[in-house]
């Protein structure tokens, strides 16, 4: 029986973006009816943690992004394992796979991305996996549990998800070969130097890396099992399983063919509003403002999804709020290597200034343009990297002190006093009334 439910707010996608919105809607509007819907059957879990699930069996309870009573406590009707199949933006209605319809006043599309499956032979074989959901991790786990000997895997794609899968598989004692089309792994988020550090760490862990190559075909042995893969250069690599990790594409199926403005993702303004009235978008599905490029771009990382969702939710609930923007920003910890990066890490031409410092195992680099930081990569010593990231995000002119940014012992004290003092000291108006008196330093020596 078809049935219609009415709601004030409808959020499609129960992950970083959806939760960010649900939380901020509830900050602004305690009561308005809010439905959160997802085709995944689980309460919101931390997607990156699927690697921990695969590697060490981390249970769902320890992957939950919010406490188990989150929905109930916040008066959120959550519909799990339910898929939205059609969107009618004119009439403010969505249709679910089971025929039900939901009538909404404000809608958020936080539908994320879906893994790209390359158009090659053999992707339908047993043992071919993607790696973006808990169910993917569970399927790989089940697959590995059938074997009582070493399993060999080929991971297609040396990006973030490929690294995450590889790290987990190695922890499960799987022998992994990574096949990367470009000339180095993690090429979109790291520069050559940091890529090389990661590659060395992978190789140290026994992973084979093949670059400048792609898999042309996944070969079957008997009975629809994988026998190996054939590369474009004709080489074949024996394996029992393949992980497809060439990328994630915004999940646009609900808006394709409609009038909503899309590019690679759904285009949103600084309020996270789409071109259609009362419809917002955030996270991996959206092209939000990138403060480095000064234009809309896909920046598919968890924090940006949450923050974008938060902004969308406030606007949906009638509290105007601007998205300050995001950019590509990543922290990696694979194979014991701590690396962070953000913005433009490998400048495309000579119009940029690069300042770098490599001392032993520590690597720090910033990319500048017109006095502003537009990119950064740090490896080894990353504790104070947030200071650099925020100077970049706040568009602070660093020309006067740029060299210190990559110092071995870089910290707030490396910056001009006008920056650190207001961050650390009591605001002047309150200082008057504060308990501690300020005496000239000469008079307060310890031990007197």
């Amino acid at each position: 029986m078809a049935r219609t439910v009415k709601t004030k707010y409808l959020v499609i996608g129960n992950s970083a973006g959806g939760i960010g919105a649900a939380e901020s809607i509830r900050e602004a509007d305690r009561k308005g009816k809010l439905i959160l819907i997802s085709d995944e059957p689980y309460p919101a879990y931390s997607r990156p943690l699927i690697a921990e699930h695969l590697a060490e069996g981390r249970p769902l309870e320890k992957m939950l992004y919010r406490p188990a009573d989150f929905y109930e406590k916040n008066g959120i009707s959550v519909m799990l394992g339910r898929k939205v199949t059609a969107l009618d933006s004119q009439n403010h209605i969505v249709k679910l796979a089971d025929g039900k319809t939901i009538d909404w006043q404000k809608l958020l599309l936080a539908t994320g991305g879906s893994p790209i499956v390359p158009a090659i032979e053999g992707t339908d074989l047993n043992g071919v996996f993607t790696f973006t959901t808990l169910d993917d991790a569970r399927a790989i786990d089940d697959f590995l549990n059938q074997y009582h000997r070493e399993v060999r895997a080929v991971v297609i794609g040396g990006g973030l998800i490929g690294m995450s899968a590889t790290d987990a598989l190695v922890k499960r004692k799987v022998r992994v070969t990574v096949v990367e089309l470009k000339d180095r792994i993690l090429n979109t988020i790291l520069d050559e130097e940091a890529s090389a550090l990661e590659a060395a760490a992978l190789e140290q862990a026994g992973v084979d890396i093949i670059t400048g190559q792609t898999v042309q075909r996944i070969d079957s042995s008997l009975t629809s099992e994988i026998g190996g893969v054939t590369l474009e250069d004709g080489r074949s690599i024996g394996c029992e399983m393949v992980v497809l990790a060439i990328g994630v594409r915004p999940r646009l199926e609900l808006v394709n063919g409609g009038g909503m403005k899309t590019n690679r993702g759904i285009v949103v303004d600084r309020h996270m509003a789409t071109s259609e009235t009362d419809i917002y978008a955030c996270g991996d599905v959206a092209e939000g403002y990138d403060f480095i490029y000064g234009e809309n771009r896909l920046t598919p990382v968890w924090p940006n999804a949450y923050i974008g969702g938060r902004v969308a939710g406030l606007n949906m609930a009638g509290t105007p709020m601007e998205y300050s923007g995001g950019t590509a920003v990543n922290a990696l910890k694979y194979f014991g290597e701590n690396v962070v990066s953000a913005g433009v890490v490998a400048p495309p031409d000579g119009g940029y200034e690069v300042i770098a410092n490599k001392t032993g195992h520590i690597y720090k680099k910033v990319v500048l343009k017109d006095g502003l930081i537009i990119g950064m990569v740090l490896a080894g010593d990353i504790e104070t990297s947030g200071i650099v990231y925020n100077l970049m995000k706040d568009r602070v002119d660093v020309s006067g002190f740029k060299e210190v940014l990559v110092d071995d012992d870089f910290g707030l004290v490396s910056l001009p006093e006008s920056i650190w003092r207001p961050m650390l000291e009591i605001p002047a108006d309150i200082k008057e009334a504060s308990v501690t008196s300020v005496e000239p330093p000469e008079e307060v020596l310890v031990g007197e």
Partner: protein
Amino acid sequence: MKRVYVNEAVCIGCHLCEVYCQLQHAQSKDLVKLFKRENPRTLPRLRVEERGIVSFSVRCQQCDEAPCVQACLTGALARDSLSGTVAVDPERCIGCWTCLLFCPLGAIRQNEGQDKMIKCDLCPGEEVPVCVTNCPNEALAYVEV
């Protein structure tokens, strides 16, 4: 809520705040054991920075719209509704370091095993955080702002 502020003019960079912080959070609560035998060793949740005659200690300022909480991949970081502090659930922290990349103060630290973040918790159970009480020069103040 109350926060710890620095009075740079009277800080002499003695690092006692670090030592007391470390001691407060150590399992052994004993300075000698902490430094000689604890493994992994508890590290301070704040950092003394020095350049020439300038010195001060840096710790989490428990930001209102805390960027680390918003960035946290796992939900391990959250504002504690009772104390108002930004608190981490070590069970759920996986040491992904995203928080640290978002912290404008660089105030988040890595534990010795480099698998969890550690941060200032304003010393639960103490009326005044131990870095403040033990600062010999009143270079730290615990003030309602």
